[in-house]
């Protein structure tokens, strides 16, 4: 798998392991079923993430959200947009850790994913190689503006209009 954030491809500091095997690893992602066990044996400074399905109700994730460092939401296919809504709900519930989208997304969804609260995308290697890093970064650049307020994305057109009306005064 290939990890990507807004600066491009980068090494993944997290390893996927069951809770019983996390000792000695600085950053791990455990299955959802292992989250309690993982938190119990967590070492000082050890970072723990969890894998969740995009069908998990946001309320069920908020129970442990403030104790984990990363939540990885699965995208079974790029056309399944449920992960965008789940990310949005987790951010609204106050999750401040790393949000990761995992699956065969396409570069043309990168700006959308970031706007919904994701920090990074974990792609199958073959997909990452075929699509190329440049296409992902280009998508962020070409969505420099947006109409929706309250999403984390570029310049908001409504705010820009307001500034233009008031001559830039805030």
């Amino acid at each position, binding site marked *: 798998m290939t990890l990507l954030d807004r600066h491009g491809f980068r090494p993944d500091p997290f390893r996927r392991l069951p809770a019983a095997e996390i000792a000695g690893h600085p950053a791990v992602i455990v299955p959802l079923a292992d989250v309690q066990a993982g938190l119990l044996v967590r070492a000082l400074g050890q970072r723990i993430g969890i894998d969740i399905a995009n069908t998990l109700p946001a309320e069920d994730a908020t129970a442990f959200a403030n104790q984990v460092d990363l939540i990885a939401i699965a995208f079974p296919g790029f056309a399944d947009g*449920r992960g*965008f809504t789940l990310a949005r*709900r987790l951010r609204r519930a106050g999750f401040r850790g790393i949000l990761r989208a995992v699956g065969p997304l396409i570069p043309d969804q990168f*700006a959308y994913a970031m706007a919904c609260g994701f920090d990074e995308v974990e792609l199958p290697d073959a997909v990452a190689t075929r699509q190329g890093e440049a296409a992902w970064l280009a998508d962020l650049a070409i969505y420099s503006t947006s109409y929706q307020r309250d999403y984390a994305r570029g310049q908001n057109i*409504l705010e820009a209009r307001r500034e233009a*009306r008031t001559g830039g005064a805030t």
Partner: protein
Amino acid sequence: MYRYDEFDAAFVRDRVAQFSAQVQRRLAGALTEDEFKPLRLQNGVYLQLHAYMLRIAIPYGTLSARQLRQLALIGERFDRSYGHFTTRQNLQFNWIQLKDVPEILALLADVEMHAIQTSGNCIRNVTADQFAGVAADEIEDPRPVAELIRQWSTAHPEFSFLPRKFKIAVTGAAEDRAAVSVHDIGLRIVRHPETGETGYAVLVGGGLGRTPMVGKWVRDFLPKPHLLAYLEALMRVYNAEGRRDNKYKARVKILVHEIGIEAFRDRVEAEFAQLDPLRIQADAAEVGRIERYFAPPAYAELQDNPPALRRARAANPEFDRWVAQNGFPHKVPGYQAVTLSLKGIGEAPGDITSAGMRLVAELADRHSFGEIRVTHAQNLVLPNVRQDELFDLWHALAAGGLATANAGLITDIIACPGLDYCALATARSIPIAQALATRFAAPDRQQEIGPLAIKISGCINACGHHHVGHIGILGLEKRGEESYQITLGGDAGNASAIGEILGPGLGADEVPDAIERLLAVYLDHRQPGELFVDSVRRLGIQPFKAAFNAELRHDAA
């Protein structure tokens, strides 16, 4: 009408550049066909039977003369010098080359147009009453809110990969001419019974296709500043919970049907309760900015029914018939909205040539403040015509073959492109429409029959809205033959209803006679002044069913 500011213009230019790059990445193999497909669809590009089709958005059916001229030019340069207006107020070009699409999108951007979200599993082009802003029965002009929704729904980060397509329609009038009850969301501008303030009544879960349903009320009164937050909440519930296991069960109507409207409403309200409407809604200054674009034009002070009009009508029966049939009451004295029928006898419904587009653009400049509307019934409207100029207008239209006096009559047939163009179709639609129009062409016969909506779809996806036709015709394929199923009693307006199937499917050549038999029942049994659809409601389907099937049984015997 709305004009792009620097931000809108830059946004649309960025999308053109983005799509050009996507096409290049597809050609280079960086994107697979599966990955490219939703990107092409969200830019309006379909692969049809014989060629690519480009569907261009005409937001809430409002066009300027300048825009229509550009569409005429695109038709000439890149298609076969004609275009096709659709039941969602859009325009389709049916003979496009994929390589030309970026150039066409750039030409559209030059006149503040685009093809964004005219297809794909996203929030589609917002539609509205074609008489918005001029109808005498209007509480409020729906175009400002339709424009607000257009902007809010454009490239929405959370709602661009929905379970299925999502259609929103808005009306501000007492009579629903936008078919809001058969949209995923229907908005009606209403007055609060106590405070008198205007807001929205919200319908959800209407739709046609293989499971036709009439929308259900999810909110009786939504205050205006809550609109975008409420839409966000509703879309979020749908995006999270709409079915993705079966594309035929993925529309929001199925979710509403399966969990029930009460449970759906509870979920939307619970989501809405967690949102801060004022952080999501455009502020008052922005709403005001949009509203000012829709301020009425500089109307002259005139009287209704001026002597010049009366004289011309008295002297010219054909003109008189056209005014009576295609005219629509305007809220300003001395003006009239008029429907330009794209249903000339024997023509393909909704088609217009580039020359026709130029003529309409010129006449809009001369007689209608440069503005044109597109109707969901696949006609055009000039919304602001002085009554004392109607005769000149009619002359010019007649010379261009655009003065057919059949708005709302039996030959004003809605038809999808059908098997002549569409890759999904199971039967042809256009030849059925042509045969029926030819059969009932005589003007006196049409007048005698009165208002009647025949709607034809060439497959179960129901782009021709057959479920809500007073008479609906659905083209299917049965053992390699085209077979047409007839429904009766549908209605797209205030008394919205899904038509009932009358009997077994018919061969194409049997359809006109079958319609004759239904009309005979109506003409025999109607009460004075009673419309076809009202007779069907009063009499029930049985007498029609009996007449419809009598002949078939006779044939079989």
